[in-house]
């Protein structure tokens, strides 16, 4: 027992240290966002502010159309997530259940696009969006992101875990593909779909480089772009306000995480019923 206790203690200490390192920036951001700028410099690591203030938050909302910016970010993230997930689901279904010529080669090429850096596609995409006159338009940010090979890969893996006999039963019942996806597949691979969706959402929510290329006016900004205003020369060095923006940026993904955490943790579907 003693041996077990000491060996476990080691892991507990490592994990606790890991949690502290992970949580520190968040706690630091929340705490600083309620400090005055002076206190932020004098009492850098104090977790509880001496004289808490919400001035930083009111400042954020008066200086920028913050509500609009949050809606922009949410709209982009929601559209991108929805379309990427749906296209990934359909593509994954086809790759698993349809037999077509060159299936494996097509799949191989599709998956290899995961390894193409963003900087390679950035310029062609930018030129296309400019030609479409979608500069400084939310649609311009959304359009190149409607499908994604990572999602196809993840959902395909989940679908492969569904016993083929379930789909064969549906085929024998003459049930169409859309209905099979809706009634049988989606309920069975729901955790994988949701965790993939959350991943898409968070990636899109945090995205900086592509929106900064497309979006020009503050009206159309997303949260990461707004955050940049306060830590660049334009916004000066008022980092308590920047921290307030960070906290606001964090809220929606955090709420989503809390709602869907059971799916994220439990990614694998309970598939197959055997006696």
């Amino acid at each position, binding site marked *: 027992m003693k041996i077990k206790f000491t060996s476990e203690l080691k892991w507990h200490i490592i994990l606790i240290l890991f949690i502290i390192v992970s949580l520190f920036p968040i706690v630091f951001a929340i705490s600083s966002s309620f400090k005055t700028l002076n206190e932020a410099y004098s009492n850098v690591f104090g977790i509880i502010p001496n004289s808490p203030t919400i001035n930083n938050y009111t400042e954020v909302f008066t200086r920028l159309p913050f509500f609009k910016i949050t809606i922009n970010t949410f709209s982009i993230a929601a559209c991108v997530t929805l379309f990427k997930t749906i296209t990934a689901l359909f593509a994954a279904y086809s790759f698993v259940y349809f037999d077509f010529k060159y299936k494996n080669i097509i799949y191989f090429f599709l998956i290899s696009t995961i390894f193409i850096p963003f900087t390679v596609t950035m310029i062609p995409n930018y030129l296309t969006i400019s030609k479409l006159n979608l500069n400084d338009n939310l649609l311009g940010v959304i359009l190149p992101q409607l499908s994604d090979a990572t999602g196809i890969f993840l959902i395909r893996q989940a679908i492969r875990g569904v*016993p083929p*006999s*379930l789909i*064969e*039963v549906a*085929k*024998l*019942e*003459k*049930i169409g593909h859309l*209905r099979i996806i809706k*009634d*049988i597949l989606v*309920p*069975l691979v729901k955790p994988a779909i949701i965790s993939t969706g959350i991943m898409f959402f968070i990636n899109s929510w945090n995205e900086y480089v592509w929106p900064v290329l497309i979006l020009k006016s503050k009206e159309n900004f997303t949260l990461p772009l707004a955050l940049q205003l306060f830590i660049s020369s334009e916004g000066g060095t008022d980092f308590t306000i920047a921290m307030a923006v960070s906290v606001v940026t964090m809220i929606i993904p955090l709420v989503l995480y809390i709602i869907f955490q059971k799916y994220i943790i439990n990614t694998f579907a*309970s*598939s*197959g*019923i*055997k*006696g």
Partner: protein
Amino acid sequence: MKEIIFENICKSYGKTKVVNNLNLTIKEGERLVLLGPSGCGKSTILRIIAGLEDITSGKLYMNDDCVNDVPSGDRNVAMVFQNYALFPHMTVEDNITYGLKVHKVPKEEVKKRLEAALEMLKLKGLENRKPKDLSGGQRQRVALARAVVKKSDFFLLDEPLSNLDAQLRGHARKELVKIHETCGQTFVYVTHDQVEAMTVGDRVALMNEGTLQMIDTPHNVYNKPANVFTAKFIGAPSTNIFPVDYLDGKIALGNQNLILPQMWINKIVDSGCKNLYFGIRPEHINFSRIEIDNAFKGFVKYIEDYGNRFGIYIEVEGNEIIAMCDKNQLKSGDIVYFSPDFTKIHLFDRNTTMSIGYPEEL
């Protein structure tokens, strides 16, 4: 006619032939059992009927129409899978009625069929449970109920009892036969269990390595096997098979001879075949420690105790032969004399391994 006809059907995966030139007619309303060892192609045949596998060559007819290109959904078949394939996220009721509801069968009709199926398969009270909350036997019955409510012309079962324990299996077997008698569809049943095949089937089709070995009634498959494979596969312990040579009314095994009855001599002469395999089931051998007429002489190698009877392994001229008896007074090393019951023997051509046939008297 609600028949299924296989005409020269072949199925290959790449270079591997899984079904080899199959010609078979499954009659309307019969219970046909496809029996064979693992990997013999029996499940593939069932999946070909269901339309879940395409055919490499040949033609498949159902209800007098060639269905080679007809998708599974249009073949009017119901299938019970080995793993039951119940939808884990649906209740028992939804599992059973899902197909009917998708095809917009009127609600009263769905309810009527559901009630009848629940009644028939003793699933009353379990309607709202999910598959994970059911026992193996209950899941199997839900899978059957789902097939029953479909009221299709053909009922396909892929080893439906293999996940049940022995006791439940015996019970489920009787239930299956009862369902067939009530519904009257054409049943095609796949199993590797010969007891199941014999008790369920009106006819048994025995497969090996993608080739049909024999198709006949369970009685004939057991008593008049068409070839060595059938003789050895059916029955446990399996039929003793050993090579013998025919000469002047006698068969010779090494240095020992056995005089054949006239009916067998005629049969052998008709067949023109002299190099034979001799087949005899362990339960059809008479043996004694005292010398008996027209018998082979051997010695006891070892004895197996099955509880209700004994298996005596006898070595004769380099061949191992097993004989069954109820009481045992023998021990290893004893000299024994044994003679087969000539009304129960089987003779096969050694070149083709096919039976030379049976005398008319039998």
